[in-house]
């Protein structure tokens, strides 16, 4: 999923300070799963913001809504019924959702309530780690299911480097050495010989090097 974390409260306070009526919109997908911007977090943030402003004597009107997703125009359209009654929107969705809301409601200021972090998976409850950087040309089939681009600090495709220590990356014992993981997996699969195949220099165009990316499905596009 796309992971995110709520922005510090004082940053959010600065965004909405000029306004009296706020629409606080959550998203029921990724940010719900990583407990950053779902229905529960919307409730918490609304109360937190309300109390913060109450301390200085200001009464904020916050309308709370959680959409199924904010990255599809059909769902964003549901906000149309509420937009005239608010001065600004604070979106708890990832950057994709925030931009879709801003695109639809050009005359209302839209602010992000979370910092979108990375595409990742849950290691254990409450812990999410980066797994994919969307390089557009997936090589997981060649590395035993472990991505060296997302998980190697130097995105080496022919690793490990000389800093790998006890299965950990040179930058921190909290970070696994991706190439140690890949080697262990190749061994477990009986594919040690694959290690010496040189992976050639990557074409980064599919990874965004060729500009902002788009997918067009001819059969589905209207």
């Amino acid at each position, binding site marked *: 999923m796309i992971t995110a974390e709520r922005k*510090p*409260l*004082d940053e959010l306070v600065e965004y909405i300070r000029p306004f009296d009526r706020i629409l606080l919109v959550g998203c029921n997908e990724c940010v719900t799963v990583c407990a950053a911007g779902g229905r*529960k977090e919307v*409730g*918490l943030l609304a*109360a*937190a913001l*309300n*109390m*913060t402003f*109450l*301390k200085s*004597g200001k*009464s904020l009107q916050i309308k709370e809504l959680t959409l199924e997703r904010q990255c599809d125009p059909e769902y964003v359209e549901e906000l149309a019924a509420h937009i005239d009654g608010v001065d600004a929107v604070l979106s708890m969705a990832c950057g994709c959702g925030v931009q879709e809301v801003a695109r639809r409601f050009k005359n209302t200021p839209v602010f992000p309530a979370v910092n979108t972090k990375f595409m990742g998976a849950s290691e254990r409850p409450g812990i999410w780690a980066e797994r994919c950087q969307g390089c557009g040309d997936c090589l997981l089939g060649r590395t035993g299911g472990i991505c060296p681009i997302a998980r190697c600090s130097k995105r080496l495709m022919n690793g490990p480097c000389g800093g790998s220590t006890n299965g950990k990356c040179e930058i921190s014992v909290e970070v696994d050495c991706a190439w140690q993981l890949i080697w262990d997996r190749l061994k477990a699969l009986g594919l040690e010989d694959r290690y010496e195949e040189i992976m050639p220099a990557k074409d980064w165009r599919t990874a965004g090097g060729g500009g902002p990316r788009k997918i067009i499905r001819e059969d589905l596009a209207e």
Partner: protein
Amino acid sequence: MENFEPVVVAFCCHYCAYTAADMAGSQRLSYPANVKIVRVPCSGKVDAIHVVKAFEKGADGVVVAGCLEGDCHFKTGNIRASRRVAYLQKLLDEIGIGADRLEMVLMSAGMGERFAETAKRITEKIRKLGPSPINAMVLSEARQSAC
């Protein structure tokens, strides 16, 4: 603030803390009327939003009371509650209400005295801290209805 009587909301788990409160009552151990008890099946059932709403509606302090370590009827509810309380304390600091207005306490069902002492201690702590920073602004009717 001579007439300030703190409002403290205490979420008490049915199996231990609430029973301890009951025991305090039956042993005629008095504890301050400032402490408003809310019975929950398990301290782990107390959601972050319950705590935050309690403060939003004017509570000056909140306590989450659960079983002693290892004794939770639902195994790890009290552990989850402790972690949640720690997380909320940070949020309360961010909001400017203050982490010290929220506390997690543990006790067993037979500890009537501990319940009474805890209730007294926390009431005094909150009294010293003064009213919650938002309370000057919250309408008095809202306080009445929260109690």
